[in-house]
């Protein structure tokens, strides 16, 4: 049962990923990408990583895709299909993608996977404590670094938005 669902989700994800890069309508590409991201969240839910799945939905599906859709709607002439790239460029991209996929497959096949003995639902309390502890298995440093990065990005966005306004009023 679980295996069947896994294969269904995976095949759908692969199909939508291919459609997303091959479609010439940019809005449809985004929607296919959204389905791929939702599929990833589905896989997380299947292995009971509920928190990771919900974060995947919020950040990627609910946040980034909405941002993409928003910015694409501001772009001119979205109704026109995208230009077809040159043949050698497509060849190069294909070669790079195949190499990457091949490397990943080799890495997966050469790794000796062990069957998981305990499948336990990780509570949100443990995740929260791990984020804020500085001892063993604590993630306080990356957590704080990321918050500073986000703060810097926000301040940068505000500064960029402000300067234009000042120039206009002058």
């Amino acid at each position: 049962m679980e295996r069947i669902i896994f294969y269904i989700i995976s095949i759908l994800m692969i199909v939508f990923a291919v459609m997303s890069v091959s479609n010439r309508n940019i809005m449809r590409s985004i929607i296919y990408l959204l389905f791929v991201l939702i599929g990833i969240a589905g896989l997380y839910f299947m292995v009971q990583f509920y928190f990771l799945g919900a974060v995947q939905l919020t950040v990627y599906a609910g946040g980034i895709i909405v941002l993409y859709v928003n910015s694409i709607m501001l772009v001119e002439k979205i109704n026109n299909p995208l230009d077809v790239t040159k043949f050698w460029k497509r060849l190069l991209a294909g070669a790079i993608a195949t190499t990457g996929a091949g490397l990943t497959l080799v890495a997966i096949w050469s790794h000796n996977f062990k069957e998981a003995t305990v499948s336990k639902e990780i509570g949100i309390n443990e995740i929260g404590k791990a984020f804020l502890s500085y001892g063993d298995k604590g993630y306080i440093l990356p957590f704080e670094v990321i918050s500073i990065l986000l703060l810097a990005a926000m301040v940068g966005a505000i500064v960029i938005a402000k300067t234009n306004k000042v120039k206009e009023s002058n």
Partner: protein
Amino acid sequence: MILNIFTDIHELLLGLMSEEAAHILELVLIAAGYLGIFAILGLLLVWLERRVAGFFQLRLGPNRVGPMGLFQTIADALKLVSKELTGTVKADMQLYKLAPYFVITTALMSLALIPFSYEIHAFDINIGLFFLTSVSSIGVIGIFLAGWASNNKYSLIGGMRTGIQMISYELSVGMSIVTMVVLAGTLQISEIVEIQKDGWLIFKGHIPALIAFMVFMIAGTAESNRTPFDLVEAESELGAGFHTEYSGMNFAYYFLAEFVNLFIISSVAVVLFFGGWLSPFGITDSIPFAGLFWFGIKVVGVIFIFMWFRWTFPRFRIDQLLTLEWKYLLPINIVNIVLMALMVWLGLTF
């Protein structure tokens, strides 16, 4: 009693087929049940909205079809089903047809997390509230797509307005939920209800909880695109906003989802502030069906407040809407979270 019914069905199915098949069939049955709840809720709330509108405007509202006009919305739904599905020329038909399903699927998924009573709670995971917000954040894509794929300027403007509005107000809804989670100490919905056995959270958290409740109600009105924040479909300026070009059942999907979202927002308010399905002072704790009754009463009460807003306040302008969110609600919310954390830390809560 209702638990007995569930176990009876379970055993009946086990007798007929293998365990795995019974499991799948039960999942399908639950899903069908929730679809039924979805439709009934939508129809009932539309009827309620029209009756309340009549009440506020000193008229009767629907009163001819069935007792108190109860079957009016069913007649409307039948009419909508029988209507032709139209679309605009040169619209992106694929996305145009896909868009309503985003809205309706997310509403259905959120419905699974709502605890109707102790017994009836389909999906109770340890990140319940977080999952609810993350699922409902996808719904906005359906509205965006509808606005874009309709190939209509009014729809596009409506869609863009929704995006701005829902992304902004999602922050306030999320932050007021976080404020209450600080007090409750858990994200699991059933546990949040359980800890309110000795007092609703709005009393336990007093001042910050009250502020959080007010912010939640304002932001919840905006999240469900209701007046005074219904710039998305402002009739006088935009026709009907993002769903101008939708007809028949496609339109009905948006309409139903809007009312189910209202129910979900109200249920979250009831769970967070008013003790969910718990009875006041535990007077009916021993009766198995009572939770459903209390939950229903509380939710209808909160829904009535939302409807009261709708028929009392005029519509905001878009700049007023954004000013309210970013310059007032968000700072209030951030200070409120700190206040609530202080209260919990110093043990000033009841």
